[in-house]
């Protein structure tokens, strides 16, 4: 059953399986395991980015096609939901319509870009996507009437998905911690409290994002293990020979570009439902494109699981490295230089160092490394 859901594509290493299982359980129970809205927000972003990065991996990792326009398709899905919610009013129909229209628009644009550029050479495609990405970003920021310009759009989603609605109370677990871990107080041993939170519409929203992402990732896992997916890998390995044994390479490249755009758009729609806001900086910026690239490379190209690891690692680093460094800096306040080096303002520097180290030590990504593949 499990293996069937994963399309027979087992993680391929015990450690990797455990890590993936840990990530899955953490995300599945995130609202009850972690305190605060920020943690839940990070968890939702991780879910969305896993889909986004996996959809990019279809292109880069599986087919060997380089694109810089992936954020556009992400944006199509996000703006689709935003515009539909504004013009149709808050409703689930608006969300579905927006996601559908966004995915359709993304597919059409991807097909057009692919038809014009993939026929020539794969490198030409990269250049075209770069141009289209810039053009769309400018267009979105200038067309304020439609897109809200740089300010973006805020809109309302169905009440059932907002914190205004309460569905009930989560069961609470209190676990007594052993004396060695945390010293007790006069009232009794130290307690770890899990659950007990109010189950609000926000949590329902989170589970919509989580379930949507899970389905999309499993679907992509299925696609890469399908006959079509194998052709993509053949094209990556040797496009000349793939053509010679009877596959029209150009059609497959266009096909995967469209598919990957649709998945990116759906990820964008989930993101828009979660944020209740879209703007050029949150869905279209070049920084997001770079994040996607980093996540694919860190996690490991050509393995959907790599997207999972990459998204989790980078998202956690971006959200918590600063806190971690602040803590470490305070702890090391007496050590000369160390505290300075770990100043939270320098978090980007350390992120850079982490990235260089990970590429150096895991040239095939974390997943490649754990699967024991040579670089």
């Amino acid at each position, binding site marked *: 059953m499990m293996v069937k859901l994963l*399309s*027979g594509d087992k993680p391929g290493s015990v450690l990797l399986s455990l890590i993936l299982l840990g990530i899955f359980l953490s995300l599945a129970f995130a609202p009850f395991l972690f305190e605060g809205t920020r943690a839940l927000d990070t968890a939702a972003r991780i879910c969305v980015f896993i889909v986004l990065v996996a959809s990019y991996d279809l292109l880069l990792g599986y087919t060997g096609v380089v694109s810089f326009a992936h954020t556009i398709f992400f944006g199509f899905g996000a703006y689709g939901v935003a515009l539909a919610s504004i013009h149709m009013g808050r409703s689930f129909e608006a969300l579905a319509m927006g996601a559908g229209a966004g995915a359709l628009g993304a597919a059409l644009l991807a097909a057009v870009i692919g038809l014009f550029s993939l026929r020539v050479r794969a490198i030409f495609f990269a250049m075209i996507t770069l141009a289209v990405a810039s053009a769309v970003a400018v267009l979105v920021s200038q067309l304020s009437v439609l897109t809200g310009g740089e300010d973006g759009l805020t809109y309302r989603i169905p009440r059932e998905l907002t914190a205004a609605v309460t569905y009930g109370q989560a069961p609470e677990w209190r676990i007594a911690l052993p004396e060695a871990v945390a010293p007790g107080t006069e009232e009794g041993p130290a307690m770890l409290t899990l659950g007990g939170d109010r189950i609000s519409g926000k949590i329902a929203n989170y589970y919509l994002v989580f379930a949507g992402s899970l389905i999309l990732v499993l679907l992509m896992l*299925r*696609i890469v*293990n*399908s*006959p*079509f*997916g*194998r*052709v993509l*890998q*053949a094209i990556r*390995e*040797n496009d*000349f*020979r*793939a*053509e*010679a*044994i*009877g*596959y*029209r*390479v150009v059609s*497959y490249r266009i*096909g995967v570009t469209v*598919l990957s755009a649709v998945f990116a758009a759906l990820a964008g729609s989930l993101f828009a439902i979660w944020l209740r806001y879209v703007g050029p900086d949150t869905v279209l910026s070049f920084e997001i494109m770079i994040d996607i690239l980093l996540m694919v490379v860190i996690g490991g190209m050509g393995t959907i699981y790599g997207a999972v690891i990459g998204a989790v690692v980078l998202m956690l680093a971006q959200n918590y490295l600063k806190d971690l460094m602040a803590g470490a800096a305070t702890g090391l306040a007496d050590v000369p230089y160390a505290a300075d080096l770990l100043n939270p303002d320098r978090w980007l520097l350390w992120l850079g160092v982490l990235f260089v180290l990970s590429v150096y030590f895991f040239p095939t990504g974390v997943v490649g490394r754990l699967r024991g593949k040579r670089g």
Partner: protein
Amino acid sequence: MADMVLETRDLTVQFGGHVAVDGISTGFRAGELTAIVGPNGAGKTTYFNLISGQIAATRGRVLLEGRNISRKPASTRTRMGLGRGFQLTNLFPDLTVYENVRLVVQAHQRKGGRLLRLADSDDHMRDMTHQALDQVQMRVQADKPVSELPHGDQRKLEVAMLIAMDPKVYMFDEPTAGMSPDDAPVVLDLIGRLSQDRSKCILLVEHKMDVISALADRIIVLHNGALVADGAPRDVMASAIVQEAYMGRAQANV
């Protein structure tokens, strides 16, 4: 020339001022194994590339079973029944031996567009793949990545992929080049058996004269891109033009 499986008419390609293949008009029948010989640079591989669609002709036509395929991409020609093998090893290095062959079977059955099935779930495809691997005695290596195979085995795999295509026209481009004396007979026996099948048309670019005399029904000789001799092996080998253009070299090599 109604009984020709494959025909080329005035087939020509020019790279800049250099005419690599110069107006070759000939045809190939089912049940016939034609050896294509000529010195290095004579245009043998270029002629193959024109037929199978890797490069476009400057002039002339290629006809498969009477249909003009000159404008069709290589992938379409392959699906129509042209089985092209390559001289330099040209495989999918990170995929397994099995997967290399299975991809060929999948292309032949036109199942590459399937998105939601599992690639390995098709029993018929698996049987076909195993059969092709058995033909070159490589089933035991099925799960190895191609990049880990010794050169001779990669050449045998190349032949297995051609077999898996089940084409109307086999185009072997020096199939035994670089093979050990142990491996070469496996491939040559296989080609010999294929040539017994009266429905198959086989083209073979080959340098080794003993191989040619053992297998070929007919020889055509290329020289500077042009077809200079065509006939039964015995006649062609004896002709003056071949002695000059090719045999002198070949004998010196032996």
